[in-house]
C-alpha cells in the first residue's frame, strides 16, 4: 500500500511539474535569469505548493503517526553547517547551468530527450561520487 501511495504521489507530482512548465529548461532558467527576460512562473509553482502543503502540514503534524507507518520520518536537524550551504551552492550552479533539477529531469526523461537522459545519468554519477566520499567528510 505504501508503494501504491508513493507511485500515485510521483504521478501527481509529475503532472504538476508538466502543467506548470517546470519540465522545460527555458522556464526554469528564465526564472533564474533575473537580469534578463525574467520568467516568474516558478514563483507561482512554489507559492501554490507551499500554500497547500503548509495547511496540510499543520493538520497532519497533529496526528501521532501517518496512516500507513508507525511514525513520521521528518528531518529534525536545525544547525546550519558547511555541507548544507556548500551542497546547496553546488546544486544551484548545476541547476542554473542546465535548467534541470532532479524531479523535472526524471519526468522529462519520458520525452526521450537525450540531453536530459544524459543529465540524469550524470546526476546519478554525482550522487554515487558523494556516497563514495560521504564517510570521509562527516
Amino acid at each position, binding site marked *: 500500500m505504501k508503494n501504491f501511495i508513493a507511485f500515485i504521489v510521483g504521478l501527481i507530482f509529475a503532472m504538476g511539474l508538466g502543467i506548470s512548465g517546470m519540465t522545460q529548461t527555458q522556464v526554469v532558467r528564465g526564472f533564474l535569469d533575473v537580469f534578463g527576460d525574467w520568467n516568474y512562473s516558478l514563483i507561482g509553482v512554489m507559492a501554490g505548493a507551499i500554500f497547500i502543503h503548509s495547511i496540510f502540514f499543520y493538520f497532519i503534524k497533529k496526528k501521532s503517526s501517518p496512516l500507513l507507518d508507525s511514525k513520521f520520518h521528518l528531518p529534525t536537524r536545525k544547525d546550519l553547517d558547511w555541507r548544507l550551504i556548500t551542497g546547496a551552492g553546488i*546544486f544551484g550552479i548545476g541547476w542554473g547551468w542546465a535548467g534541470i533539477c532532479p524531479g523535472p529531469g526524471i519526468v522529462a526523461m519520458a520525452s526521450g530527450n537525450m540531453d536530459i537522459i544524459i543529465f540524469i545519468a550524470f546526476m546519478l554519477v554525482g550522487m554515487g561520487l558523494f556516497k563514495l566520499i560521504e564517510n570521509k567528510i562527516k
Partner: protein
Amino acid sequence: MINAIIGGVLIGLAVSLMLLFNGRVTGISGILGGIIRPQKNDLYWRVFFIGGLLFGGFILQYLRPTAFIQLSSALRVDYMIAGILVGFGTLLGNGCTSGHGVCGISRLSVRSIVATFTFIIFGIISVLIFKLVRGSL
C-alpha cells in the same frame, strides 16, 4: 501564471499525500539517493515513487507533449557537468527544490529556507555566467 499555480497546487497535494499516508518528506534527490545505497526495508517505496514520476512523464508526453519542448543553447557537455553538480550538491546539501524548496519551507525549517535561498542565488549566478560566456541561454 495560472498554469504555474495549478501545477504548484498539484505538487502541494502530492507531497501532502506522501506525508499523510507514508509519513515521508517528498524530497526527490533524497529518495533517489536512498536507492543508490538502499537500507533494509526502505527501497521499494522509493522505486515506486520514481516509477510514478516517469509514468506521469509518459502520460504528459502523450497528452501534453509541448511540456517537453526544450529551448536551450546548452551543449551535451553542459548537461554532463550540470548533472554531476546537481547529483553531488543535492546529496551534500540534503535536498533539492522539492525537499528543501517545497516540503522544508512549508515546515518553516530554517535549514531549508537557507538552502533554498542559497541554491537560487547560485542558480542566478550560474545563469549570468552562462550568458556571459555563451551569449545566450
